């Protein structure tokens, strides 16, 4: 996903994408990040316990933890609520 996103939207996107463990390059490509900011975001999420780095055969993959599920659910409910309450757009 590209475009102007908030940091919380980027965190959500990383966590959703990493439900299946992914390598660093796949994450930054998918989330349209440069390697420096990508590294910062991953370190932050790993520090909070939402991401876990797993190294297998010399390759590091990042996977979302159970704690990440709470953030994902909270984020989804907050964003979907935007369309439950008026005003809505109608022709």
């Amino acid at each position: 996903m590209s475009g102007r996103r908030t940091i919380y939207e980027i965190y959500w996107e990383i966590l959703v994408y990493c439900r299946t463990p992914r390598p660093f390059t796949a994450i930054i490509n998918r989330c349209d990040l440069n390697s420096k900011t990508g590294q910062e975001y991953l370190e932050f999420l790993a520090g909070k316990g939402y991401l876990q780095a797993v190294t297998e055969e010399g390759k590091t993959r990042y996977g979302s933890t159970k704690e990440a599920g709470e953030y994902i659910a909270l984020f989804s409910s907050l964003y979907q609520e935007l369309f439950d309450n008026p005003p809505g757009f109608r022709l």
Partner: protein
Amino acid sequence: MHEQTLSQFGTEIRQFFLISLLNLVFAAIAIAIGVQYIVTAILGQTLDPVIPGFPVIPGMRMLSAAIALCCFGLGIQWILSTVRIFEGVVMIKDDLKKAGGAITDTRLTCLIVRMLAHYRDNRRTIRTMILVCTLGGVCFFVLGMANSLKVLSISSGGFAFTFDNLLLIPAMILTLGISLASLLSSYYFSKFARVWDQRLNAIGRSECTLKQKLGLDET
């Protein structure tokens, strides 16, 4: 909650797609009419005054050609901006259609985030388009009237007008139709922008909750 969100989001995307399409068609017509005016003014195919009842002013033809050229450039810029907005909406609309009624919670949230990012990217363009559509609508209205009326007299008792030629009535109706479409497009764009601005504000407020969840809240 999911069904209601999906229904509301889907309806909004489809309706915004229709407005963008209408705007695209209108921008194309504006370019075509701009070209027609440039050609007419440069080749001097008409000696009629710009405003009915007023004498022909020397140099007016070149001035109207210059204005038409500006309108043409504006039309090109306008169509490019509309295409950018249109493309983004089409992609989201198609993805929503592909997912169908059995869309997952995550996929729906992903599309909402994409639409919000698309709106943030094009917020200024949409604001400009609201202004351009309003101006365009007014200009086309004046143009439609000015090209069709031979005499317009306004007195304290009322006003009277004479059509230049009955054959011009369909052309006038078309121009007035374009004018109406432009004003409608402006109205709906501003309505859309108002609703989505409110949503961006709501997201700003809900960020406090996300901040707390991530342990970033210092208070």
